[in-house]
């Protein structure tokens, strides 16, 4: 028990000097500031989005008409595989990690994430793994068996190049990044909240990323195991998937989808959470049915572990198991329906202000429903036998991933960029951006439902004119081009706003959550004083008074601009997991080169393993060990607790 006594003013200069990264190269490589890391995540994942988009456009050019010869089948196979893994692994999840990294501590009233160095490592390994996988494309040996890479086609006899070695090692590499990132989010939500921010006052965005992080912790090992088997089978003549040697091709499918289906929710739940932040702000009222939305987020994460077999309905499973997994896959629509109606009710019962982010959110709601119902369609086993592995599923996955990930992400850029840069993005350009993306998206992807129902299998590099798919594919290609223009407008708007955007001030949208309390962009220390929280929407308390959700009568109001300073080095509160009662003052780590060096060593190991340069792999391994020891050596981990 300790009591912190008052002083007169917060020593802002001291805080600034304590928290700011050193200038120069050292500061760039060694910084552990969650805001810097968050921005790096965002920029890097947007680059991957553009790369994946270019791959898609090349494929669309090939598919514009029947019997096209723009691409060889081998090139097409590499393109669709790279497109898939780039978007799913190197864009969709990292972009959400970027937002969570940047926003979480601001939203939670903390000065940093729980494990700042782990956070830096998570980013550097993400970047390094991306460089690694794109090395494959640069040397013409990119993965080529589809993003879900069904064995045995991935084994040496059918795929002798380095292609699938890059796939296996690249994904193991990325898994390290994602797993430690997820542990960091969990640790942060458990320990790093402002005093008083109990579970019923957590923003839904936090619930979304938290659920996704739990799901990642338990599902990613399945991918690690599967890809490790793949690498071993390809390199060391072991047998896991080769049926002739007692293995089973279905082992890959089970492991992959035990990971893969939770992964779908990992890349949509945080995005849905972001929507649940934006909807109340622009509808000028608290979110309808907050506890239901929070619980449905968690329920989705849990049920998401019980539906993997719906990717395998055509593999000849027993009927009982198909009925079970069909039922589970149908039931998972309920939590999503709850969220959808909470948003719609918030729009109806509030007074929506149609700024650009809100336009994207409204567009998202419609797309979410289309992606959702087509998901139910594929959960109905006998019809799934017809549409699985056709363009119907391609349409479904794009409505889910673009509809539920990209649109909220673009909305979130419009919403939070002013906080990050201090400047607003253009509303005029934003509306143009919205309509081109919305029209282009529906023009490009809705017809894919039709081409799927007309029997077009996915992953065909060309098709005969007699199949009758020419006109739908032409429309799809035109739509994808329009969509690409929309993305271009978005990127242009970002650059324009950096230079010429109107100054945002601390709270341009008059939002209610904590990240809008400090100036934009936030100072290195986030909060001059650690706020004390008494409701879910601290910045709306002055207007809503006792009606503010999460407020307990008699407990008083939140204190945002007055509170505890904590300025003896990098300090913030460690709070209890449920009630966010302050337990101790945490001493956060200083900047460090070890995360960067460790990622470099891992990259060396990965290159060593893929090219069978064993000396390099061993050298990398030694480097990793040395970095870890150096990392763990300092005082704070040995004496991390301070009573």
């Amino acid at each position, binding site marked *: 028990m300790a009591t912190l006594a008052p002083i007169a003013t917060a020593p802002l200069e001291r805080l600034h000097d304590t928290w700011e990264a050193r200038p120069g190269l050292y500061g760039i490589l060694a910084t552990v500031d969650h805001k810097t890391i968050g921005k790096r995540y965002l920029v890097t994942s947007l680059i991957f989005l553009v790369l994946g988009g270019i791959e898609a456009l090349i494929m669309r050019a090939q598919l514009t008409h029947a019997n096209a010869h723009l691409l*060889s089948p081998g090139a097409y196979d590499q393109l669709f595989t790279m497109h898939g893994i780039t978007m799913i692994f190197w864009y969709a999840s990292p972009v959400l990690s970027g937002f969570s990294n940047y926003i979480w501590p601001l939203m939670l009233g903390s000065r940093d994430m729980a494990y700042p160095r782990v956070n830096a490592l998570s980013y550097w390994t993400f970047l390094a793994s991306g460089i690694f996988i794109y090395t494959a494309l640069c040397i013409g040996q990119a993965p080529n068996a589809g993003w879900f890479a069904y064995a045995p086609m991935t084994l040496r006899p059918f795929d002798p190049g380095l292609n699938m070695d890059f796939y296996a090692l690249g994904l193991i590499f990325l898994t390290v990044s994602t797993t430690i990132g997820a542990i960091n989010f969990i640790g942060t939500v458990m320990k790093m909240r402002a005093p008083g921010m109990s579970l019923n006052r957590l923003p839904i965005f936090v619930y979304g990323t938290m659920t996704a992080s739990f799901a990642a912790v338990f599902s990613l090992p399945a991918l690690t195991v599967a890809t490790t088997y793949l690498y071993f089978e390809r390199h060391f003549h072991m047998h896991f998937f080769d049926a002739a040697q007692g293995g089973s091709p279905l082992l890959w499918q089970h492991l992959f989808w035990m990971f893969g289906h939770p992964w779908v929710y990992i890349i949509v739940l945080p995005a849905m959470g972001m929507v649940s932040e934006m909807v109340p702000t622009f509808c000028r009222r608290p979110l309808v049915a907050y506890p239901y939305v929070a619980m449905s987020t968690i329920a989705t994460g849990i049920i998401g572990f019980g539906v993997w077999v719906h990717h395998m309905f055509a593999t000849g499973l027993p009927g009982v198991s198909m009925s079970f997994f069909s039922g589970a896959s149908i039931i998972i629509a309920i939590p999503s329906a709850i969220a959808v109606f909470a948003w719609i009710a918030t729009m109806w019962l509030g007074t929506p202000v149609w700024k650009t982010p809100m336009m994207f959110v409204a567009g998202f709601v*419609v797309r979410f429903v289309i992606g959702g119902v087509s998901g139910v369609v594929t959960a*109905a086993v006998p*019809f799934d036998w*017809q549409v699985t592995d056709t363009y119907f599923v391609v349409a479904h996955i794009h409505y889910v991933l673009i509809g539920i990930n990209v649109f909220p992400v673009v909305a979130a850029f419009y919403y939070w960029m002013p906080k990050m840069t201090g400047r607003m993005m253009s509303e005029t350009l934003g509306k143009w951006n919205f309509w081109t993306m919305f029209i282009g998206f529906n023009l490009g992807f809705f017809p894919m439902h039709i081409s799927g129902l007309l029997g077009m299998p996915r*992953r065909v590099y060309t098709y005969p004119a007699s199949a009758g798919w020419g006109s739908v594919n032409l429309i799809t290609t035109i739509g994808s081009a329009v969509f690409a223009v929309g993305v271009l407008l978005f990127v242009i708007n970002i650059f324009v706003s950096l230079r010429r955007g109107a100054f945002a001030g601390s709270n341009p949208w008059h939002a209610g959550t904590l990240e809008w309390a400090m100036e934009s962009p936030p100072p290195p220390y986030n909060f001059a004083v650690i706020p004390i929280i008494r409701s879910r929407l601290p910045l709306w308390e002055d207007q809503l008074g006792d009606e503010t959700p999460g407020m307990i009568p008699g407990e008083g109001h939140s204190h945002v601009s007055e509170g505890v300073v904590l300025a003896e080095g990098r300090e913030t509160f460690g709070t209890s997991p449920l009630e966010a009662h302050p337990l101790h003052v945490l001493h956060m780590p200083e900047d460090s080169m070890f995360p960067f060096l460790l990622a470099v060593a891992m990259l060396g190991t990965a290159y060593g393993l893929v090219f069978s340069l064993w000396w390099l792999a061993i050298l990398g391994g030694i480097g990793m060990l040395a970095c870890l020891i150096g990392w763990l050596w300092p005082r704070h981990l040995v004496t991390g607790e301070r009573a």
Partner: protein
Amino acid sequence: MPRLSRRLAPSAGALGSCALAGCTPLNVLAHDGVTGSRETGLGWFLVIVSCAVICIITILVLVAYARSRKRRTRDDAVFAGSSGVPWVMWGGVVIPGIVLLLTFIFTIGTLDAVAAPTRSPAATVKVIGHQWWWEVRYEGTGPSHTVVTANEIHVPVGQPVKLELTTNDVIHSFWVPALAGKTDIIPGQTNTTWIEARHTGVFGGTCGEYCGAQHAHMQMRVIADSPGDFQKWLADEAAPAAKPADPTAADGLRVFMTSGCANCHTIRGTGSGGGVGPDLTHIASRTTIAAGTLPNTQANLMGWILAAQAIKPGSDMPSMPLPSRDLQSLAAYLETLR
């Protein structure tokens, strides 16, 4: 539920006739088979329910937009508003719950109905998926009654036919949309499915699982014959190849035996026994070559032999730069293999 699917059947039939006319031969919603029609009935139900849900939500969002334009307030004003929980209870739980329950019941019912034919199958056909073609075997009482063909499956109309699906290379998926949904073909296991065509005709099919470079060129056809025609076809196919009747054809047989073709292909009755490529004993009776890539004409046949790697890059069939006289005799000989 069955009543609903029957009511939807006419509209499905309209699309179906389009499919039979050949504009979109793989149309999922056009059906002829017994299992295909059950799956399509479920499909129409799902498509209609989905469209209804999408329309309702879109209207709700548009109305929210329209309403808000009338009531402008100050941008920074906030209101607590009413709880709105009934929206979530009705719209998010009760109504979707009912719709989803109906969907589940319909799904389970269809699953049960298509699980097995009501009568014992009239024939059992072994289908072996290869990169990138289909081997089709009708195992008779002895080697002389065994029929081996490729990329075309003949079945008697109005009778269930059992298919045993295997592969020795990678995963493929058997799919003839009008007759049945996909059944994966997986190394190390034998999956079975069944089809029953209601009318005579030709039904398009294709590989439904990405299986490598030429997945796009792995089509096949199911041809439903009258029972009499089917028996006759079976008997014809079981016979060894006819002896060449004219000198050109005889020369073609010589080319076949000496240019390497026989290393990979079999023409029963000639002494060739290659097992890599399709059995060519009755190749002239088939409608396509290279797994549905080209119509089976003499010109296409010659083009395929000469430049297979240009037409289907990556396939096991090499481009064979034969002298033009040899090529012509070979094609002429193959044309005689009815």
